[in-house]
């Protein structure tokens, strides 16, 4: 059942491929604003790279949520899905599709941004650094959590009379812990100290969210169509 649901979500996403590219463009554009706004110096950009990339990833996940939920709710197919499968399964299939279609490309795209932000900069040109790989790891563990938490916020606001900003206001506070540990991973890597502990916490948050949030999001979907 889960596979069927996932296949449906992915098929819908493929037919709407421009809509999928938009969050990626957004991600790149937001990050590339910072050198203009702050300073194009490599040493300086390197210091803020972690936070900038993480915040941009967070916002583009948040903004891409809409297309996975809104149209299904509006044309009534969400109701049919909830009759067909358990709410938890429906929520989980949407989260999985959302991550595969936006979260994973963000992770794959991030080295380009790391390049733009001079993340691998080192005063000594002969020393190779691995900051970019560390950043990818942190995003790999962080983006699924973003999709999971976002699913709750999006599902809750489906039946609300105002949305858009509402999802952000509800969910951004919940993103604070992963943002802290996610950028702490990269900061630790920049100062050449151990970052395994922060990565482990990100992983733990992901597992915790994976167990609980599909249930909450499913409940929320159910409330929306009730």
């Amino acid at each position, binding site marked *: 059942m889960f596979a069927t649901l996932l296949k449906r979500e992915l098929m819908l996403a493929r037919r709407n491929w421009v809509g999928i590219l938009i969050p990626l463009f957004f991600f790149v554009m937001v990050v590339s604003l910072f050198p203009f706004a702050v300073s194009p110096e490599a040493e300086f950009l390197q210091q803020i790279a972690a936070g900038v990339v993480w915040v941009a990833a967070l916002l583009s996940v948040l903004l891409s949520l809409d297309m996975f939920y809104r149209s299904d709710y509006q044309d009534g197919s969400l109701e049919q899905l909830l009759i067909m499968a358990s709410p938890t399964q429906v929520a989980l299939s949407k989260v999985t599709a959302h991550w595969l279609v936006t979260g994973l490309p963000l992770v794959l795209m991030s080295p380009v941004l790391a390049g733009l932000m001079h993340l691998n900069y080192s005063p000594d040109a002969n020393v190779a650094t691995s900051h970019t790989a560390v950043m990818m790891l942190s995003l790999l563990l962080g983006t699924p959590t973003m999709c999971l938490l976002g699913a709750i916020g999006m599902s*809750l*606001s489906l*039946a*609300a009379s105002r949305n858009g900003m509402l999802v952000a206001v509800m969910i951004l506070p919940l993103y*604070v812990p992963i943002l802290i540990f996610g950028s702490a991973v990269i900061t630790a890597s920049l100062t050449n100290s151990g970052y395994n502990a922060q990565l482990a916490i990100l992983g733990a948050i992901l597992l915790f969210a994976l167990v609980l*949030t599909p249930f*909450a999001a499913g409940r*929320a979907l159910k*409330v929306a169509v009730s």
Partner: protein
Amino acid sequence: MANASKSFGRWFHQLGSPKWFYQKSAKWLPWLWIATAVLLAFGLYYSLFASPVDYQQGNSVRIMYIHVPAAALSMVGYLAMAICAVIGMVWKMKMSFMAMRAIAPVGALFTFICLFTGSLWGIPTWGTWWEWDARMTSELVLLFLYLGFIALHSSFNDRSKADNAAAILALVGAINIPIIYGSVKWWNTLHQAYSVTKKGAIAPEMQTPLFIMIAGFYLLFAIMVIIRLRLEIMNREAKSKWLQEVIS
């Protein structure tokens, strides 16, 4: 024992009736007001005039007598909201959702008071009114959670959907409460560790007024919630016969 649990059960069921609560709470409120006024008047006098000056902080230590009770209530309020959410979702008690709705703005207010007095206290003692320390950050997140809850609840045309959706959000956000509570223990940052009830950590001449103030704040919180709850009942039960009889 059986009798006691029976009478508790009855009391709990009565609490689920808006009519019963509306009529009873009108009788509780004057007493609650008196108790709160006495506690706060005595507590404020004790803490602002009669308690000793801190040998390091001077008179600024007196901010504590507002700051700590407000902080306690900001967390307890959210917890109460989450408990109301669970009761409402599981047993479908309408009073429970009304209480949840009534607590949110009061809790947000106390959270704001906590943050505000905290930053006032920070200027003379830490030399900064804001620091991104674990407890301050999580208290700020708590304020955002309250605001998100209020925003979500007021975005629906359908009241039952609003209640159910906001209840889910309240439960999800409840994760933050243990984080705030434990933050000063887990991360050794600027904010001092928990010391209110720890033996010997705080002088008895300061602890007694602090406890009086905490008790006063609890009552004040209860009064504000009850008043809001009564308004909520009037709002939702506007068409019911008993309420029209009470008003006319």
